[in-house]
């Protein structure tokens, strides 16, 4: 039975026949079988129902002959029953299943970053020119013990800190959810720029171990790909408790995407669904977490900082405090805009809290308890620009993780169909016909460019605030002002309203 039979296609593929030269590039490049060619009639046509608006055909067409239009909602205007709700209900009536989706929350919840503004210095304090003065973005991740003594620390349990040259790292995207080519692009760019990438819960493919010293290797609830070499090769070990896109549940990689190389890296049979359980089945409480943290530290002779990644949920401040006291060196917090390769739509869109509020609360709580120095805070979840990054650091983060922005740099157009494995851009797929479209040489360059552009913009904004070192921005809420935020929001963020003096 065809799906969406009660609903017309969401999109229309419109081809300008005056421009179309019938080169058939669109047919070859469409990952979803929407573009078709009838050889007998020498005619190009489209199956609109298959189109997911990934924009691959539009980009590849040398004649610019294609446009994808969003069809009008197939119903009367209704502020309560939106088109999205109708389509979801119809799909579930047809299949009886859980609605799946990819990427991050696309619902119109209030965007706090867009209601925060930054300061600049004038007259009483000169702004600093990043083209002529050193502007330092280097950040060290890990636990900062104090006081500092002049003698060599003979303490075997003091873990080295990890420097990154910019406060931006690539967030967890597993090999399996993304292609080898995409994974390699991230690894190469991270190494070239001097920052880190995160392996996600799919392990580290054997042929990419040359990038391992720039990798945060993840230990997730499914423990995919976790073995001693993996732990010892990485630069940081991250225990993934949760992610912003699906707080409370585990990762999900459909069997279609578990090809032989993916299966080998994950150490599971080919073609089986890779389902990470919701909790780690050996972490049911904070003391269990402490045990795992120290197990990993012992296994790596205290040479690798251990990070714990959690979703931003209501109790995030208390949870973070517990994690800091359990021995973690880094706490990564993923807000509700975080992306994913596959998640139930309802959980992605309705569970979790914004990263802005989470970071503000965690930073404040850790300071109140006097333990902020014990951990580095990394914020994640929908950072769209260098301005978002600067605001996150001002709220209290040491660094940020980006993933969606990185994928957009590689070509992703947020069609949200990652879980199908049919990504036309070669990113979220294991099909070699599709994945070869992402040349890691080009991918790595584009990612490097993104890091470079954002880093330079951060330097400009810092200089504008009269700051020449990123540690002077960390937690410095005085450089932020809110607009259009109510008293409660301002208090939670710890910022004043625009118009108030310093």
């Amino acid at each position: 039975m065809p799906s969406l039979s009660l609903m017309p296609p969401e999109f229309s593929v419109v081809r300008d026949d005056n421009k179309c030269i019938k080169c058939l590039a669109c047919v070859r490049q469409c990952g979803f079988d929407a573009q078709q060619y009838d050889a007998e009639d020498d005619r190009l046509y489209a199956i609109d129902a298959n189109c997911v608006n990934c924009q691959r055909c539009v980009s590849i067409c040398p004649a610019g002959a294609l446009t994808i239009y969003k069809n009008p909602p197939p119903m009367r205007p209704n502020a309560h029953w939106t088109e999205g709700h109708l389509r979801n209900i119809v799909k579930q009536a047809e299949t009886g299943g859980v609605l799946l989706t990819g990427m991050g929350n696309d619902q119109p919840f209030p965007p706090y970053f867009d209601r925060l503004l930054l300061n600049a210095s004038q007259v009483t304090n000169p702004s600093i020119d990043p083209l002529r003065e050193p502007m330092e973005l280097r950040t060290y991740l890990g636990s900062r013990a104090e006081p500092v003594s002049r003698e060599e620390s003979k303490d075997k349990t003091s873990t080295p800190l990890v420097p990154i040259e910019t406060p931006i790292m690539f967030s967890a995207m597993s090999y399996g959810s993304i292609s080898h080519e995409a994974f390699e692009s991230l690894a190469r760019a991270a190494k070239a720029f001097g920052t880190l990438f995160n392996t996600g819960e799919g392990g580290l493919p054997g042929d990419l171990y040359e990038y391992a010293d720039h990798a945060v290797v993840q230990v997730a609830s499914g423990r995919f790909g976790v073995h001693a070499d993996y732990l010892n090769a990485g630069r940081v070990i991250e225990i993934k408790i949760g992610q912003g896109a699906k707080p409370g549940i585990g990762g999900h990689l459909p069997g279609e995407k578990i090809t032989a190389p993916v299966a080998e890296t994950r150490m599971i049979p080919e073609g089986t669904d890779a389902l990470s359980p919701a909790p780690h089945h050996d972490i049911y409480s904070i003391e269990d977490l402490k045990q795992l943290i120290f197990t990993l530290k012992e296994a790596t002779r205290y040479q690798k900082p251990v990070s714990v990644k959690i979703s931003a949920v209501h109790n995030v401040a208390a949870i973070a405090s517990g994690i800091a006291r359990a021995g973690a060196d880094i706490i990564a917090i993923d807000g509700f805009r975080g992306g994913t390769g596959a998640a139930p739509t309802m959980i992605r869109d309705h569970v979790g809290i914004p990263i802005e509020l989470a970071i503000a609360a965690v930073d404040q709580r850790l300071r109140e308890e006097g333990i902020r120095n014990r951990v580095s805070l990394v914020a994640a979840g929908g950072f769209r620009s260098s301005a978002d990054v600067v605001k996150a650091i001002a709220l209290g983060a040491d660094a940020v993780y980006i993933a969606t922005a990185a994928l957009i740099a590689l070509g992703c157009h947020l069609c949200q169909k990652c879980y199908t494995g049919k990504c036309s851009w070669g990113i979220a797929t294991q099909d070699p016909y599709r994945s070869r479209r992402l040349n890691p040489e080009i991918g790595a360059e584009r990612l490097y460019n993104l890091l470079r552009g954002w880093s330079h913009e951060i330097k400009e904004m810092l200089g504008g605030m009269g700051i020449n070192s990123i540690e002077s921005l960390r937690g410095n809420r005085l450089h932020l002002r809110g607009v259009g935020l109510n008293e409660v929001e301002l208090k939670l963020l710890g910022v004043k309203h625009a118009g108030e003096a310093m």
Partner: protein
Amino acid sequence: MLREGKYRIPSGCAISGFINKDGRRADGSAIIQSIALMQERSNGLGGGFAAYGIYPEYQDYYALHLLFEDKLSRNQVEELIKDNFYIEAEDRIPTRHVRSIGKAPLLWRYFVTPRLSKIEESQESEADFMTRLVMRINDSVNGAYVVSSGKNMGAFKGVGYPEDIGEFFRLDEYQAYSWIAHGRFPTNTPGWWGGAHPFTLLDWSVVHNGEISSYGANRRFLEMYGYKMTLQTDTEVVAYAIDLLVRRHKLPLELAARVLAAPFWQAIDRLPAAERDLYTRLRVVYGSLLMNGPFSIIVGFSGGIMALNDRIKLRPLVAGSQGTTLYVASEEAAIREICPDVEKVWYPQGGEPVIGRLEEGSQCRLSA
């Protein structure tokens, strides 16, 4: 409109200071002359001084200099003082009438020592006990403010040009081995004597020309260690940071200066391994105490003074030496004004501290 002290005012201005390293004491007329020369840098809305070695007869007692806006606050504070301290002596701080100085608050000083029973009860060190009490007075007693709380030193400050303030407080009648001074150019209306520099804690005093753009980060770090920012001026964080680094964490003063004005990473990367490791760890642990934004500061303490610029030297600072005296000021002219034949004059690099200390053996001069 919020009262001054409730919102931050950037510090403009002029600073000057000197120390006789042989312990020789001098009266306040020289420092007044020096700071008066730089009148152009102030706007008459604040001036202040700190002097070391001025109470040799009470050198074992904490000299609490206080200002009160009214009798009520004075009574409240005196209750607190009597409760926690043994008072050896007390009196109004001597002043003389100066036409340009407006209505002054009540100005008192108490020579005290903490009651042993109170210290035993709280199990703190004497210094921690003092700092806690000082913050308590500043924080919780409306209208009262501790101007200085060190031994054998005192701060004198108020609203007016520094030379008028110096005249008002009869500084020509005090003898000190080191003096620091400040003239202020605040960018809005004043009114509060407590807002002038120096800012003090125990025997630390700080005068500061600049604006700290890292203030928010510095403050939130210091709050973790129990320091309360009651004043909302940038200078507060400098004094507390030095107290934390030097007194509580036992860092040598030179290294504390390297925390406030840390070397750039590109310089640290080029150092030999042991030094590189040390400076990296300093920056990593104390990164939130890095002072960003333009500043030149003079820090006074028992036994010495330190002058420091921000790393890219966005405010002026000149040093000079003549015999056993070290001079530091915002301008060379201010040094030459009081020492015309100064032997050596130099411009310290951004981030490099200039420190002058009492020589060994000069200590005994203080009891003269």
